[in-house]
């Protein structure tokens, strides 16, 4: 392995914390990273704006104020119904999945020290898709596709984990094994789609590209709970990963239990991704783009878990809004929109010389 990432030249914590501020609450005080907080607020503002636009626009356009009023149950019953039943639930599903995928991507990228290492690329998405498609076109079952997508994601991750015999150095082995497992599931999905008739293939279609149109409510609930539980853990792991960014020996020297951290990070990544794909299907590029946006805003300090969540939520709902309105009444699935926005960006990451530097 010749292209080892270069070591950062300055330490994260310095004697005089430039760019930090003390927040004092009586006897207590917190040291905060100014840029992280300001970009956090920026992202929250962006998210609120996108949410407002998303709630207001659609086949029947409303003014943002009407839409917001309708969202909290005020105004004409028709508007309230439209916004609450059709738009708000979809928006919430988008925000939650975006946040979960953003965090998952952020963790995995940091772990692998490679910004291309996203949960979608390592086979979790393919596993979820294969299972969901199977439940629709191949194996008659009473279970909802989203439940099977969850199972599939877990199966793919479990296979990858079992077959790679642990995380391996920097999780690389896990990633390549994940790609192999993903390729297998991909072949199976293609086989199933070729064997079935077009109508069933059509029904399975949202699960092959990723869509937020009419998602099952239970899956959204589950994701919401999972995200609430997962975020603090992610934040905790993020701190440890910050130290791991230097090098294994430095991290060990600083008292990070490397192996356990790697396994825990992978597990959390799989957990969040699985819950998210059970709702939306494969939208891998969110996990690539959201941490990227977060890092850009925060600057390359630490592991921006919360900001990646916010960026993911904003991006996902923005992409869904575009897909919903661009070619209306034809729905463009959010996964396709993300790929088209994210594609050129991905190429840019691949092609610029500094791509060698790890995040």
């Amino acid at each position: 392995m010749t292209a080892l990432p270069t070591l950062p030249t300055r330490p994260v914590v310095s004697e005089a914390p430039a760019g930090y501020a003390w927040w004092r609450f009586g006897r207590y005080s917190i040291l905060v990273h100014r840029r992280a907080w300001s970009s956090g607020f920026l992202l929250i503002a962006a998210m609120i704006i996108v949410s407002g636009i998303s709630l207001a626009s659609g086949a029947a356009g409303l003014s943002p104020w009407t839409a917001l009023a309708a969202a909290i149950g005020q105004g004409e019953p028709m508007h309230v119904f439209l916004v609450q039943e059709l738009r708000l639930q979809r928006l919430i599903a988008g925000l939650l999945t975006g946040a979960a995928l953003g965090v998952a991507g952020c963790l995995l990228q940091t772990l692998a020290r490679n910004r291309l290492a996203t949960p979608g690329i390592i086979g979790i998405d393919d596993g979820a898709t294969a299972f969901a498609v199977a439940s629709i076109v191949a194996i008659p079952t009473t279970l909802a596709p989203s439940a099977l997508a969850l199972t599939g994601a877990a199966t793919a991750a479990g296979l990858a984990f079992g077959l790679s015999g642990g995380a391996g150095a920097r999780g690389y082995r896990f990633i390549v094994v994940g790609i192999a497992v993903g390729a297998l599931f991909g072949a199976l999905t293609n086989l199933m789609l070729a064997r079935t008739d077009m109508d069933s293939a059509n029904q399975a279609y949202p699960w092959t590209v990723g869509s937020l149109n009419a998602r099952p409510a239970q899956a959204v609930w589950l994701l919401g709970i999972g995200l609430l539980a997962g975020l603090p853990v992610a934040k905790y792991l993020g701190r440890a990963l910050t130290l791991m960014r230097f090098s294994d020996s430095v991290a060990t020297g600083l008292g990070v239990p490397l192996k356990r951290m790697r396994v825990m990070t992978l597990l959390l990544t799989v957990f969040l991704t699985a819950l998210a794909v059970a709702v939306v299907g494969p939208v891998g590029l969110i996990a690539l783009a959201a941490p990227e946006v977060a890092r850009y805003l925060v600057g390359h300090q630490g592991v921006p878990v919360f900001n990646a969540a916010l960026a993911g939520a904003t991006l996902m709902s923005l992409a869904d809004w575009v897909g919903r309105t661009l070619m209306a009444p034809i729905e463009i699935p959010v996964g396709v929109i993300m790929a088209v926005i994210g594609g050129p960006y991905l190429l840019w990451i691949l092609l610029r010389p500094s791509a060698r530097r790890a995040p």
Partner: protein
Amino acid sequence: MALATFNFPRTWLRAFMLFTSVVASVPSASWAQTAEARAVETAFGTVTVTGTPSRVVVLSENALDTALSAGVKPLGTVSTRGSTGVSRYVQDKVGTIAIVGTARETNLESVFKLQPDLILAAPDLPKAQYEKLSLLAPTIVPSTAVTDDWRKSVSLYAEALGRQEEIKASYQQLDQRIAALKARIAPGQVASVLRWNPQGPILMSSHLFAGQLLQQLGFKSPALAESLTQRPHSDILSLENLHQADGDWLFLATLNPEGEQALAQARNQPAFARLNAVKNNKVITVDGQLWSSGAGPLAAQKILDDVEKVVAH
């Protein structure tokens, strides 16, 4: 996210209340039990429909065909394969119709905007979609499989539309034409429906819509097509076994208008050229869309048009 989660429980709480208020506010969408209300058995349980709905949205070609046959002009439908509009064979009958999505995904807001009082959907509608659609209007999802009698789902749609008489009339028309055609076709001939793909041929099940019609016309089908009772078509058939799809007549289903091109391609294949139907020049290229999954009285007439070519031969 803060905004959204804040409202989340209330959304659900309100859903129920809203439900009643919306129903009351849309004059035509009355779910209330009245004298002429009828219960329709669907894949998602019993659905009550009142009167003869006039604001109908159809989410499958089958339903569109049925509605048109029953004399209802739907307000909206989904676009079909190969085009951004409706199928060619119903184009002159639909008048102005709104497109509310594709066969893959329905745009719920577009349906909402049309204020339907009845929604007719395809048998395989996902549950999550159903839950949303049924909030907009009574939604009819037949619990039929592709290999069931095609009239089952058509009759169900007609029942929901409150227009059984009209559909019965179209059945009668169809039966008369079938009887007339049957008299002109020598009985006991084997007809098979084949689709030619780049990786080899697939045989269509004889239990599909088109196969059912062929059977009524007195055609037999290859044993292999007969054995496909659960699936609409076979896997890619090995060329070595292509003779199992042979018959007196071969209907070659193609998805593009240039059926002749696909036929020429198939003829290049020695295994295809050896088939009796091919040697005897008894191959008829037909619209694959119509012959593989389309269903409805109008589509049936269209298929009979194709079969009439057999007679002309």
